[in-house]
């Protein structure tokens, strides 16, 4: 019973840490946007890096994805899907962006 409640506390703490971390990152993103405005690329770079950090925090603390050997197969699935996703997104943006430049709808 004691060991159980100990484990319960630990797993609950894990969720609360994940929540606290995500909360801080979200507040930071909106604070940056509010203070500096959202016009410049530098600000956007900071915002997207914080977004990426929050993705990782939630994957680890909420979805419990990590490098534990027993969940390796599923981690492979997630990584492979991410690879497919990156190829789709980056490929689309690259090709369509290049097309737009050649059609002169974008300034060079």
């Amino acid at each position, binding site marked *: 019973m004691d060991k159980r409640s100990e484990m319960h506390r630990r797993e609950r703490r894990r969720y609360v840490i994940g929540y606290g971390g995500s909360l801080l990152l979200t507040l930071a993103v909106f604070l940056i946007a509010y203070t500096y405005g959202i016009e410049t690329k530098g600000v*956007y770079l900071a915002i*997207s890096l914080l977004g990426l950090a929050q*993705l990782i925090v*939630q994957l680890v603390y*909420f979805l419990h994805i990590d490098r534990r050997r027993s969940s390796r197969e599923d981690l492979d699935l*997630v990584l492979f899907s991410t690879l497919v996703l990156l190829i789709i997104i980056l490929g689309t943006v690259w090709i369509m962006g290049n097309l737009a430049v050649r059609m002169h709808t974008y300034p060079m």
Partner: protein
Amino acid sequence: MKRAPSHSYPGLNLGRRHESAHKATEVVTFGFWVFLMSDLVYFGLMFAIYITMIDAQAGGPGPHELFDLKSVFAQTMILLTSSLTVGLAMLALKYNLPRSRIVLWFGVTLVLGLSFLVLEIRDFMAMAEKGGIPQRSGFLSAFYGLVPLHGLHVSVGCLWLIVLGIQLRVFGLTDLLMSRVVRLALFWHFLDLIWIGIITIVYFGGLTYG
């Protein structure tokens, strides 16, 4: 009989205390991850379309006239908190807390999910009043293809919460229902991940590059 390892699939595991439910959950959870990942690829396509369409505003209203960051901030907070409460529901289940506790966290999650949807629909209505309707420009078509798709997922999640809540009341904590709660929690966390992509790419990205 070989015992299932205590941690055998991503996401919170039911563990040894629910041995039979744990084993039954392992395979279906893997299948559910395959579904989530294919859903992720679908969302990824919509993101890619949105990124290529950011400039295609055809003289219509753009991100600066249409997006309301205060409302987006509120929606983000609500969805993030609901991700925590669905996790707490899952923990209540795992550690055999009274069923009322599970139903309580389910209820809180449902209320948060519905408030998220109300705010989102109010945003869409405000956008439509300013002339931001899907057929106005490629940018708006891409926006309405992506953000309401996420909203639709949240609606389905809410419906799932209601159905599962009723099933828990009627049937009690059977193995099948426990494994369904695990999948619902995964689905809900996944929606929160997609939402981070939406605020970063659709809202902030739109405001920066649109």
